[in-house]
């Protein structure tokens, strides 16, 4: 039972952390909880579908279906995170200033939070399909399944607890600084997901250059360990990345930071830069 719990928990940590960060980033926005719940629900349905059609997905596109699927889902998440940050750079300050007012649901802001709901859906979809397959495997194996199944479910519950803990941890930060913190978290999150994305493209031999291992720190901090897993999500830590993954990581990081800078300077040049 503990084994099943650990396997499921390991898979859902990433989605759990992402949901927690997104909840904090959209705190107080009217309707944001609904969007995030919809994102989770869409992710769960997608995960179940992906699990049911696992073999078809594996065989699709000359045996590269799974890699393309994973890379595609990750790429969408990266784009949505980048877009959210750029949008926040332009409008975030006004949002933060109006925090006291009931619901900062600037009509234009909604689209940005829908982007984050898509990120949540993508995270749940990717991790969820593996959990669904694992639980399905337990059910069909017939060997003491209920015990294992209970373990798996407890793992899921622990994952949800990660979301809650992340959210409450982040919202202790004063609202004035909260956006800066979540925006920073989102940049690193996006860079890490971009590195994962290119990893799948390399696994599928769609990207073939720079496939050698850049470094091996698995002896010091294995990314399968609990701390390694958390760092894997938060900053994209991998103990044996390919050179291409490292390159893509830094390109994504720099690209989002530059785009955000550009967007925020555009905002301040628009006459009314509110004083701190």
């Amino acid at each position: 039972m503990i084994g099943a719990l650990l396997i499921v928990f390991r898979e859902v940590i990433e989605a759990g952390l992402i949901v927690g960060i997104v909840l904090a980033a959209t705190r107080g926005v009217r309707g944001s909880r609904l969007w995030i719940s919809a994102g989770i629900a869409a992710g769960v349905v997608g995960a179940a579908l992906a699990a049911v059609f696992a073999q078809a997905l594996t065989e699709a596109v000359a045996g590269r279906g799974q890699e393309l699927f994973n890379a595609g889902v990750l790429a969408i998440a990266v784009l949505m995170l980048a877009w959210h940050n750029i949008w926040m750079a332009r409008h975030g300050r006004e949002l933060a200033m109006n925090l006291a007012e009931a619901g900062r649901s600037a009509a234009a802001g909604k689209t940005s939070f829908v982007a984050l709901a898509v990120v949540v859906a993508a995270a749940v979809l990717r991790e969820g399909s593996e959990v669904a397959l694992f639980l399905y495997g337990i059910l069909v194996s017939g060997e003491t399944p209920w015990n294992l199944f209970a373990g798996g479910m407890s793992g899921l519950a622990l994952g949800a607890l990660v979301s809650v803990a992340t959210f409450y941890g982040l919202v202790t930060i004063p609202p004035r600084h909260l956006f800066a913190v979540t925006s920073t978290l989102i940049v690193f999150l996006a860079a890490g997901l971009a590195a994962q994305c290119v990893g799948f493209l390399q696994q599928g031999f769609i990207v073939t250059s720079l496939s050698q291992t850049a470094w091996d720190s698995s002896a010091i901090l294995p990314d399968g360990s609990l701390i390694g897993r958390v760092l894997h999500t938060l900053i994209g830590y991998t103990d044996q990345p390919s050179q291409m993954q490292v390159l893509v990581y830094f390109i994504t990081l720099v690209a989002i930071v530059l785009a955000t800078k550009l967007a925020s300077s555009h905002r301040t040049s628009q006459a009314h830069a509110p004083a701190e």
Partner: protein
Amino acid sequence: MKAMQRVCLGVLLAPGVWFGFQASAFAQEATVNLSIKDHRFQPSEVRAPANTPITILVRNLDPTPEEFESKTLRVEKIIAGGGSTTLRIRPLGAGRYRFFGDYHEDTAEGYLVIE
């Protein structure tokens, strides 16, 4: 209308042809066969030459799904119960590369020995 259908078919098939062409572009390639039975790899140790692209064919003979995973080979891929998959591995230097089944790591473990 006919021409349109032909174009559509061409567009649909093009990626497959392209991938097929890419696959055959490797001058030499080693192929390794593995199967999963009772949550164990058979054989649990396979050999392949160094500096050669490797194709691993994995057949899952169990009714339960498994995730073939390896940190050093940088692979994680789900194989449905009773299903199979083809993994392509970059050219490797000599060494022992561990792989395992993520859902049954306590029993499903094996090594790819490159020499």
